[in-house]
C-alpha cells in the first residue's frame, strides 16, 4: 500500500458518507401511511484499515447504518397516503445534522486532496534529481 492508495480510499469513503447525507436530505419531508415504511436516515461508519507491511493505515466503510429514530407522526387527513386515523408518517431527517455531516465530510475530503497534492509534488521533485 502506498500514499496514493491511502488517499484514494479515504476520498472514496468520504464520498460514500457524502452520498448518504445527500440521500437523507433528499428524503427529508417524504411521508408514508405506516410508521414501519417511513424512510430512516442512513449513516456510513468508517473503520481503520492498517497495512502491517508499510505501517500506513487507510479507511474503509465498515457499514451503513439506519437511524433508530421514530418516524414523525402528523395528523393530515387530507393526504391521500394517510392511514385510517388520518395520520401520515414523516421521515425523521434532521436537516441541520445532515448539513453539518456534509460540510465536515467535504472538509475532510479537501484536506486529503491537499495532503496528496503536497506529497505528489515532493515525490516528483525527488524523481527529478539528476
Amino acid at each position, binding site marked *: 500500500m502506498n500514499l496514493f492508495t491511502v*488517499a484514494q480510499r479515504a476520498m472514496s*469513503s468520504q464520498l460514500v458518507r457524502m452520498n448518504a447525507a445527500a440521500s437523507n436530505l433528499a428524503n427529508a419531508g417524504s411521508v408514508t401511511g405506516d410508521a414501519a415504511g417511513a424512510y430512516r436516515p442512513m449513516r456510513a*461508519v468508517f*473503520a*481503520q484499515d492498517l497495512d502491517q507491511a508499510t*505501517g*500506513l*493505515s*487507510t479507511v474503509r466503510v465498515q457499514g451503513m447504518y439506519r437511524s433508530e429514530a421514530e418516524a414523525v407522526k402528523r395528523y393530515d387527513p387530507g393526504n391521500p397516503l394517510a392511514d385510517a386515523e388520518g395520520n401520515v408518517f414523516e421521515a425523521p431527517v434532521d436537516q441541520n445534522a445532515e448539513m453539518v455531516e456534509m460540510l465536515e465530510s467535504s472538509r475532510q475530503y479537501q484536506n486529503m486532496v491537499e*495532503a496528496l497534492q503536497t506529497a505528489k509534488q515532493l515525490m516528483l521533485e525527488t524523481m527529478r534529481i539528476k
Partner: protein
Amino acid sequence: MSDSIFGIHGTALELRSQRMGLLASNIANAATPGYKARDIDFAAALKSSMAGNTADQAANAATLYRVPVMPSLDGNTVEMATEQTAFAENAVGYSATLSFIKARVETLSRAMKGD
C-alpha cells in the same frame, strides 16, 4: 555507499517520507471512530538511525501515539489543525533535505564531467 555520499540526508529523507505517510494516514482517518493518531518523533528517529539502526527500525521505535488536546467522544484522536501543521512542517523539512541531496548530486556530477 549511499550513506557515505549523502551523509545524514539520505536517512533523513527516508524518515521524512515515512512520517509523511503516517501523517497522511491520520488525515485519512479523521472520521474513523476509535482511531488513534500516530506520529514519528523525528529527532529521536534520526538519532537512533545515526547510532546504526536502519531507517525502518528507527522509525518504528520512534512512532508514538499523539496526545490529543481535546479527545472526542468516539475515541478518535485526530485533530485537523495539529495534523495539517505537522504535515506542512514535514513537507518543508523534506524539501530542505532534498535540496541538500540535489546539491550533493550536482557537486559529484560536476566533478565527474570535469567542466
